[in-house]
Structures are given as structure tokens and as C-alpha cells.
């Protein structure tokens, strides 16, 4: 925590919720949150590099413990996808689900890092005054994921049904092909197409952001003295344990919604 700020609750929270931003243009859009992107890249490379390393040595015979763990993960994802998506899942949808689940899980798991200890590390080792380690509590990340899935959803809709079929479906589903209900159908589909990425991304963002805020609020107990510090630490442990559930559950939900949306895109009405 930087010393030149007066340590008030709002400055404490603001400090923890400020991105390490790098601007390269005039507008507000042309900047990059280096912390979000950096953590995402490092975790992506580490996690998928590890998976790749294990899979490269995979054998069809008796698997080692590492391989067994990866196989459990892969089969878990495959089972979920199998239940929802009926088609050739191995070329794209199942690998996508695995990517989403593993990556989001790792990004969410950054929430377990103790915020104030890590703040010291960021400042003194990485040289970053502001640093937010949880990429999924950055709305840019969740929107990036949800919009990517949204684009894939539209791509597969058009690929499976053809452009005409997709447009036909926009106007003729779900209420029927009578021209009188075309506006209603279109409106309905429009709302659906808007609400899908919004709910998809905001659900994850909200959960992770709220989790981070709770940690910050619990961290503020340290300002009330030793007893408050201990009390805050105990609450922090409790919240961390509960957060394990949230982290895994949100990653799972994000994956399931991804698969559901893509499965819906493959179905014709």
C-alpha cells in the first residue's frame, strides 16, 4: 500500500480496485489493463502449457497420477458436454468448454491470494502501485469471454442453418411464421441475443467482484486494532473457504452456459 495516501476506508478500497492501466491513445477505450491481461496470459500459458506437457506424454496404457488427473478433468468436461450438445463435440465444442472451464477457474482462483500481502509484492517486486490480480473481476475479461461465445453462437447458427435459415429463425421463432407475429418474434430474439452475453458475463463478473469487495471489507477490520485484525482474519478464512465453492461453481456455470448457448445455436426450430 502506498504511503503517500491517507489511509481511509475509501482510499484503501479505491487503491485495491484501481487497475494498472497503460494508455496508448486519446480516447478512454484505447488503454489496456496490464494487470488483467498479464495475469490472464501468464495463467493461460502456465495452465495450458502444463496440460500440453502432460498430454504429450499421455499413454493409452496405465496412466500416471498426473495423466489420471488430467483425464478426470477432460472426462468431466466431456460428460457435461455430451449431456447437452448432440453432435460432433470433439472438433470444437468440447475443447472450447475445457478451455473456458480451466481458464476461468484459474482466473477466479487468483481471488484466493491474500490481497494486502500481494499488494506489497506488486508494489515492491513488480513495481506496480496499483494491481488487480483477479482478471474475472474485470468486466473486460468477462465481456471478452461472453462476446467471443456470442460471436461463436451466431457463427454456428449461420453455419448450421445457413444465413437464410438464421434470418428465417429470427423472424419465425418462437411464435410461428405468420407475418403478424414477425415483429414479436424479432423483438423476442433481439432481447435474447442481447441478454445472453450480458447475463453470461455479468454473472461471473458480479460474483468475482463481490467476492473481492468482501475481502476488502474484511481487510478493513485490521484498522480497528489487534482484536479486529484477528476477527477479520477469521472471517477472511471463512469467506475464503466459501469462496472456493464460488470460484469453482462460477467457472462451471460459465462453461455450462457456453455449451448450452452453442448447443442452442446448433438446433433448428
Amino acid at each position, binding site marked *: 500500500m502506498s504511503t503517500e495516501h491517507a489511509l481511509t476506508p475509501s482510499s484503501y478500497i479505491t487503491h485495491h480496485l484501481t487497475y494498472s*492501466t497503460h494508455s496508448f491513445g486519446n480516447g478512454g*477505450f484505447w488503454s489496456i489493463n496490464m494487470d488483467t491481461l498479464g495475469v490472464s496470459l501468464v495463467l493461460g500459458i502456465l495452465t495450458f502449457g502444463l496440460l500440453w506437457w502432460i498430454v504429450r506424454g499421455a499413454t493409452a496404457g496405465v496412466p500416471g497420477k498426473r495423466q489420471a488427473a488430467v483425464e478426470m478433468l477432460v472426462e468431466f468436461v466431456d460428460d457435461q458436454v455430451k449431456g447437452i450438445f448432440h453432435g460432433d463435440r470433439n472438433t470444437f465444442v468440447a475443447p*472450447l468448454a475445457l478451455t473456458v472451464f480451466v481458464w476461468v477457474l484459474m482466473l477466479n482462483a487468483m481471488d484466493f491470494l491474500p490481497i494486502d500481502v500481494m499488494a506489497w509484492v506488486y508494489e515492491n517486486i513488480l513495481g506496480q502501485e496499483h494491481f488487480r490480480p483477479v482478471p474475472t473481476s474485470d468486466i*473486460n475479461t468477462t*465481456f471478452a469471454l461472453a462476446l467471443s461465445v456470442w460471436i461463436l453462437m451466431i457463427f454456428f447458427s449461420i453455419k448450421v442453418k445457413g444465413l437464410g435459415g438464421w434470418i428465417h429463425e429470427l423472424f419465425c421463432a418462437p411464435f410461428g411464421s405468420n407475418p403478424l407475429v414477425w415483429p414479436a418474434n424479432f423483438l423476442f430474439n433481439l432481447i435474447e441475443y442481447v441478454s445472453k452475453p450480458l447475463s453470461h458475463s455479468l454473472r461471473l463478473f458480479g460474483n468475482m467482484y463481490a467476492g473481492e469487495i468482501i475481502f476488502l471489507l474484511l481487510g478493513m477490520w485490521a484498522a480497528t486494532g489487534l482484536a479486529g485484525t484477528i476477527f477479520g482474519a477469521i472471517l477472511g478464512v471463512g469467506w475464503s473457504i466459501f469462496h472456493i465453492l464460488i470460484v469453482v461453481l462460477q467457472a462451471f456455470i460459465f462453461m455450462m452456459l457456453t455449451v448450452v448457448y452453442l448447443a442452442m445455436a446448433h438446433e433448428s426450430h
Partner: protein
Amino acid sequence: MDITFTLIAQAITFAILIWFTAKFIWPPMMSAIENRQKTIADGLAAAERGKHDLELAAKRAAELLREAKEKAADILASGDKRASEIIEAAKVQAKVEADRIIAGATAEIEQEAFRAREQLRSHVSAIALAGAAKILGREVDSRAHNDLLDKLVAEM
């Protein structure tokens, strides 16, 4: 909370990770898993087949054993029968042989008796002749009385 270029950067990262997973992680893992599943399924099928074969073999062995027992019993029975036949035949043969021996012996005895009687008869004529000579006290002309003596011998 601003939407910035981070979104696009993250989307690119995401796309690369999806491509990487779909190309380098998912297919080899799935092929390893599916190969192992196939191996296990084959192994289970082979075990099932082996069990079935074992059952068949056990059934066949029991059948063979039963057949062998039956055959052995048959052999024993026919052996017994043959043995009693042989004994019967031997008995019959022995009886025939015994009868033959007895007949031979009887004939020989009769012959011996006949010969003894002949001998005795010849001796008797000599004794009678000697006795008669003693009684008469003189030499009897044997030639003159031979036919008389022969008649006597024949009567004996």
C-alpha cells in the same frame, strides 16, 4: 469499470487458448482415453469368453469322466462275463479230458488184466501139467495130451 482495449486483447488470448486446446490438448487426450477404453472393453470381452470356454471345458471334462466310468464299468462287466465263460469252458474241457483219461485208464487196466489172465492161464496149464505129471508119476507125453490141456486152459 471502463470497457477498454483490454476486452479485445482478452478475446484474442481466449481465441488462441481455444485453438491451442482444440489442436494440442483435447485430441491426444481423447484418443488416449478412447484407446484405453477399447483395450479395457476388449479385455473384459476376452475374460468373458475365457470364462465361457472354461465352463464348456468343465462340462466336457465331466462328460468325458462319465463316459470313461461307463466304459470302465462295461469293461469290468464283460471281463467278469468272459472270465466265467472261460471257467465254464475249462470245466467242460476238463470233464472231457478227465473222461478221456478215465476211459484210457480203464482200457489199459482191462488190457493188463487180460494179459495177466493170459499169463496166468499159460502158467496154470504148465502148473496143471506139472501137477498131473507128478500125480501120474510118469512122463506124460505132452504132445499126446496137448489138445486136452488146451481144452482145459480154454475152459479156465
